[in-house]
C-alpha cells in the first residue's frame, strides 16, 4: 500500500514536470490514463495489483536503453524524462551518454535526363542517446521499460539490451578432474 502511494506520488510528480517540457500530446494522454488506473487500484485498496509467484525474479546486471532519432532536441528532452523516471523509481543510473551521430550522404543527379555535372546532395542524420542502468530486477525493468516505451515520441526508435545474471548450471559447477582420480 505504501509502495502504491509512493509510486502514485512519483507518477504525479512526473506528470507535473512532463507538462512543462515539450512531449507529444499522446504522452500526456498515456500519463493521464496510467494515473487513472492507479487511482482505480487505490479505491480498492484491499486487492493489490501486484501478483506473487514462486519462481525467483530474473536479475539484470546491466540494462541499456539506446534511443535514435533525427532531432537532437527531442532526444535531449527524452533523456531528461527517462533519467528522471529512473531516479524517481530508485534505479541506479550508470551513465547517460551520447554516441556519435551517423550521417548518411547521397549524391544524386539533379536532372532527370542528362547534365551529369550537376548533382544534388542529401544527408540524413541519426542522433543517438544511451542510458545505462545496473543491478535491476526483472519486474522493475519490465515496469520501467513499459513506462518509457509508452511515452516514446514519434520518430524515435528504441533498442533495449539486457544482460541477465544466470546461475551456473549444475553439471558444470564442479570441474571434471575432481571426480575421476588419475592413477
Amino acid at each position: 500500500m505504501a509502495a502504491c502511494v509512493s509510486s502514485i506520488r512519483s507518477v504525479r510528480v512526473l506528470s507535473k514536470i512532463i507538462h512543462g517540457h515539450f512531449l507529444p500530446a499522446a504522452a500526456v494522454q498515456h500519463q493521464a490514463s496510467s494515473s487513472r488506473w492507479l487511482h482505480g487500484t487505490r479505491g480498492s485498496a484491499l486487492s493489490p495489483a501486484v501478483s506473487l509467484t514462486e519462481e525467483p525474479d530474473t536479475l539484470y546486471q546491466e540494462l541499456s536503453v539506446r534511443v535514435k532519432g533525427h532531432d537532437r532536441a527531442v532526444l535531449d528532452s527524452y533523456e531528461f524524462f527517462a533519467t528522471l523516471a529512473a531516479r524517481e523509481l530508485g534505479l541506479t543510473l550508470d551513465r547517460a551518454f551520447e554516441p556519435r551521430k551517423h550521417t548518411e550522404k547521397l549524391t544524386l543527379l539533379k536532372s532527370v535526363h542528362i547534365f551529369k555535372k550537376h548533382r544534388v546532395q542529401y544527408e540524413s542524420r541519426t542522433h543517438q542517446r544511451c542510458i545505462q542502468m545496473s543491478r535491476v530486477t526483472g519486474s522493475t525493468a519490465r515496469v520501467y521499460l513499459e513506462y518509457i516505451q509508452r511515452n516514446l515520441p514519434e520518430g524515435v526508435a528504441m533498442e533495449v539490451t539486457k544482460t541477465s545474471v544466470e546461475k551456473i548450471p549444475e553439471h558444470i559447477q564442479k570441474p571434471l578432474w575432481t571426480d575421476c582420480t588419475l592413477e
Partner: protein
Amino acid sequence: MNKNMATSLVRQTKLLSIVSSQLNSAACFRNIHCSAACLKNRAARIRVGKGDKSVTYEQAYHPHHIGHRKGWLSQHTSNLQGEDGAAERVVEDVFIRRFMYGTFHGCLADEVVIKRRGNLLVICAVMIQKLLPSKFYFLIGYTEELLSHFYKCPVKIEMQTVEEKVVYKYL
C-alpha cells in the same frame, strides 16, 4: 608614400577598365557568367514575384531549412540508421495526403502532418472554417474509420480550425 599608393591604385583601376572594355568590345564576345541555369534549385520553393502571392510559413522556407527553421511533416522511424520500411511509409503518406486533400476539399490551411507512434497513426491537420462543425465531425469519423480499415491500424485525426489561411509573408 601615400602618393605612390594612390598612383599604383589608379594604374590598377586603369588596367581593369582596359581589360573590361576589351572584353565587352565588339571584337570579342566572351562574357563572364557566374551561375549556369542548371545550378539553380527549384525543389519545394515558391519563386519571388510581384508581392501579391500569399505564402504560409511552411511554403516560405526552403528544404535546406528543415531541422533548423522548419519541422518534419512526416514523423516515423524508418529513415533512421538500421531501420527499414521507408518505401512503404512513403507510399502510405502520399495516399493519406491525397485522401485528406480530397475529403476536406478546399478546407486545408496548411500541409498535413503525419505521426506514427508504435501502431498508431496520427494525422494532424489545420482547417479553414469553411464547413459546419457537424460536417467536420462526420468527415473526421469517416476518414478515421476508412483509413483504419485500409491500413489495419488505429488512426486518429487531430484537427485544429482557423478562420482564414495563416499568411506568413507575400512574395
